């Protein structure tokens, strides 16, 4: 590998300090450090460092996304082909889906990384790895067949307004991938909701049931899919969200590597279950529910984007709560609000996106109160005995 290194060092020369392309060094380094972890040594502080770095963490998340992505490719083809032919071959379905989805991924990465590189060069800092995950997440939470230019504009909005405006990776308030989806959702609603977008070319076919489960419920119709279908993901929906089983697999990898917070994931599931159980219990309290309220609580966990959102979006450490206690509260409310929005507002059957964005906004407030409780504990200690107790006695 020595000769690659030598070649790279030679190629870098014009980018070195004081040379012609000095300004473009961050762009060169982004590729260089992707090939080789640099030879930087510690100059102050601890002399030895842990093997982990941000690249490793982000690549781990990408790895956790791969099974879901591959399944999404197959399912896209499967959902389309099963409408027009009785038997669906595995590779036909996969090939069809891949042909639809790969361009979306390419566009997402090209546009997003383009902006990231431009900012890195302009601001003179390294290219951050955050977009490696965001860039893959964005196509996976869009309906298949979304025009590529809409995808590109959503990416531009998410990266520019959602992230770079706040100072780049690590400084953003909202999850950038969900910002992209929210933008597309409100800017191009006809491409992002309804019963025609979730299966490829649905409008061109008659009698296609391209409705998502939550959409069906909101419209007050019968769901044709079993819980097992929902769990394994043989249902229409955004590219990555359908298979709860594979989201679970990704969750296990994230929890095993300690990259994703198990506290957030668990508390999300708890929150969603609690809300689901409350609505399920409505008839026993004498209140007549509807198709959505009587949708079994466990089905809420496996239908729609909840599982995907919990595993890959809610656990985003930058936009989520940062304190341990805060993570429990943050996750619980995401679960709670997801199901609540689904049921109360049939116009937005996909509640998890809005719930996570809402809690992103509230995460700093949650942390503030968690930290404040520690501060008041410290202040109380300072005063010795709490003076109020003294006067009360």
């Amino acid at each position, binding site marked *: *590998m020595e000769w*690659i*290194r030598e070649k790279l060092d030679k190629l870098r020369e014009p980018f070195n300090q004081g040379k012609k392309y000095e300004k473009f060094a961050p762009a060169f380094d982004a590729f260089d*450090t*992707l*090939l*080789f*972890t*640099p*030879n*930087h*040594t*510690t100059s*102050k*502080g*601890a*002399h*030895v*460092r*842990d*093997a*982990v*770095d*941000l*690249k*490793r*963490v982000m*690549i*781990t998340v990408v*790895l956790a996304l791969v099974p879901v992505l591959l399944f999404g490719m197959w399912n896209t083809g499967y959902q389309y082909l099963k409408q027009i032919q009785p038997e669906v071959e595995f590779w036909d379905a996969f090939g069809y889906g891949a042909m639809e989805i790969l361009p979306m991924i390419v566009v997402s990465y090209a546009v997003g990384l383009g902006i990231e590189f431009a900012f890195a060069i302009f601001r003179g800092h*390294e290219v*951050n*790895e*955050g977009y490696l995950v965001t860039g893959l997440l964005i196509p996976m939470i869009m309906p298949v067949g979304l025009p590529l230019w809409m995808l590109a504009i959503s990416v531009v909005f998410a990266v520019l307004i959602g992230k770079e405006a706040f*100072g*780049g*990776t*690590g*400084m953003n308030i909202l999850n950038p991938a969900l910002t992209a989806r929210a933008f597309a959702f409100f800017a191009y609603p006809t491409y992002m909701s309804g019963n025609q977008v979730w299966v490829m070319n649905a409008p061109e076919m008659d009698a296609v049931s391209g409705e998502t489960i939550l959409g069906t419920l909101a419209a007050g119709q019968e769901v044709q899919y079993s819980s097992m279908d929902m769990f394994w993901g043989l249902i229409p929906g955004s590219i990555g969200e359908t298979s709860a089983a594979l989201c679970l697999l990704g969750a296990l990898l994230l929890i*095993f*590597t*300690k*990259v994703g*917070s198990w506290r957030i994931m668990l508390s999300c599931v708890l929150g969603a279950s609690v809300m689901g159980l409350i609505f399920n219990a409505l008839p026993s309290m004498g209140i007549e529910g509807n198709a959505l309220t009587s949708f079994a609580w466990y089905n809420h966990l496996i239908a729609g984007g909840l599982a995907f959102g919990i595993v890959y979006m809610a656990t985003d*450490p*930058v936009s*989520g709560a*940062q*304190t*341990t206690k805060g*993570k429990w509260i943050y996750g619980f409310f995401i679960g709670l609000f997801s199901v609540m929005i689904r049921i109360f507002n049939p116009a937005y059957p996909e509640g998890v996106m809005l719930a996570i964005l809402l809690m992103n906004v509230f995460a700093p407030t949650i*942390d503030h109160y968690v*930290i404040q409780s*520690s*501060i008041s*504990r*410290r*202040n109380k*200690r*300072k005063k010795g005995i709490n003076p109020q107790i003294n006067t009360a006695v």
Partner: protein
Amino acid sequence: MSKDIRIKRGHTLRLKGEAEKTLVDAPRSKTYAIKPPDFHAVIPKMVLKEGARVEAGDELFFSKYSEQVRFTSPVSGTLKEIKRGEKRRIMEVIIDADPSDTYREFGTLDPLSADAEAVKNRILESGCWAFINQRPYDIVADPKDNAKAIFISGFNTAPLSPDVDFMLKDRMDAFQAGINALSRMAMVHLSVAHDSSSFGSIKNAELHKVSGPHPAANVGVQIHHIDPINMGERVWTVKPEDVAIIGDLFLSGRFNAVRTVAVAGSEAENKKYFRTKIGANVTELIGTVGDDIRIISGDVLTGQKLSNGQYVGFFANLVTLIPEGNVYRMFGWLPFTYNDIPSKSRTNLSWMFPKKKYTVNTNLHGEVRALVVTGEMEEVVPMDIFPMQLIKACMAGDIEKMENLGIYEVAPEDFALVDYVNTSKIEAQEIIRLGLDLMITEVG
């Protein structure tokens, strides 16, 4: 009331090259040096000129802000050089040592029966005050203050750090005398490892048994669990071997600056415990080493980098030698690869071998980034403190927030593991040090 403390959060780094438990006398250095930068925030005022004759225990310089705080020569000889750095800051005061030491006689004193003020003055006069560190701020204590308590951590958990029981086993009398002297100034808390047997008979000190991973032996962590520092309070800390030096002062009437230095690390050849004096030349202990080896005065987490021919730090009981890490690694970011580099995270598989000892180098293993990952710092700071929020408050210079988040209870060494584990390669110790310095100027 003694407490048993069990530290749960933390991380013990297992490295190759532990020092073998043999105590040998180090060859006598030709030169010794006291390095004023070892005493943070002390501005030295020299009393002697180059060429002056000194006995062991003679004053070399004092602190500009407190004339009582003297720094004395560990050996006898002649003052060879006052080495200055940028802005004429004094970096090293080098002494050409005699073949054997002659001492300035301070006279013996029984600290328990003598006047408390006399005990304190003796410590000040002899230069032993330099061993007394103050929390908050991690600086040399101010003799005008009244300390709430004095804390001594009687063991080590830092990587490759020396065994205190072994280091002190022939000096327990001096150690007891030192405790006696310190106990005249404030209550003394001595924390020992839960499996230590050497300190059972120590009197005049509150004994606490502590167990758990590093940083369980950090005195700051122990203070936090025994009697935390509140705003406006002062506590003092002394290292165990320095307690013995203080004790020796009262027993023999001399400033006998004995320093046991363990030489350890994967690149060290003669891994033993050496007896020498404070400020020994590192070359006398380890010889001359190449550029591919880093010499660290102290442990790999908190130590200072040394070059050949430089001097071991004033407080250091350890010299660590590890390989420099200026090498490239191809696809170093691939999860579950490069398992020979220890990681607290589970993005490689080193955690599956908790007993394995590693050779580590000084590579940063990544690049500096903005703070992204949360929850990892909390796992290595076993205190009721939010490390990431405190670091951010220090970076922002928000004094009120730093105070609220517990800046008075921490020292840079308590954040050494944060340096080590954090994904973004943030220099936590430096940030905390700058935060403490800001507090010194703003609050005092």
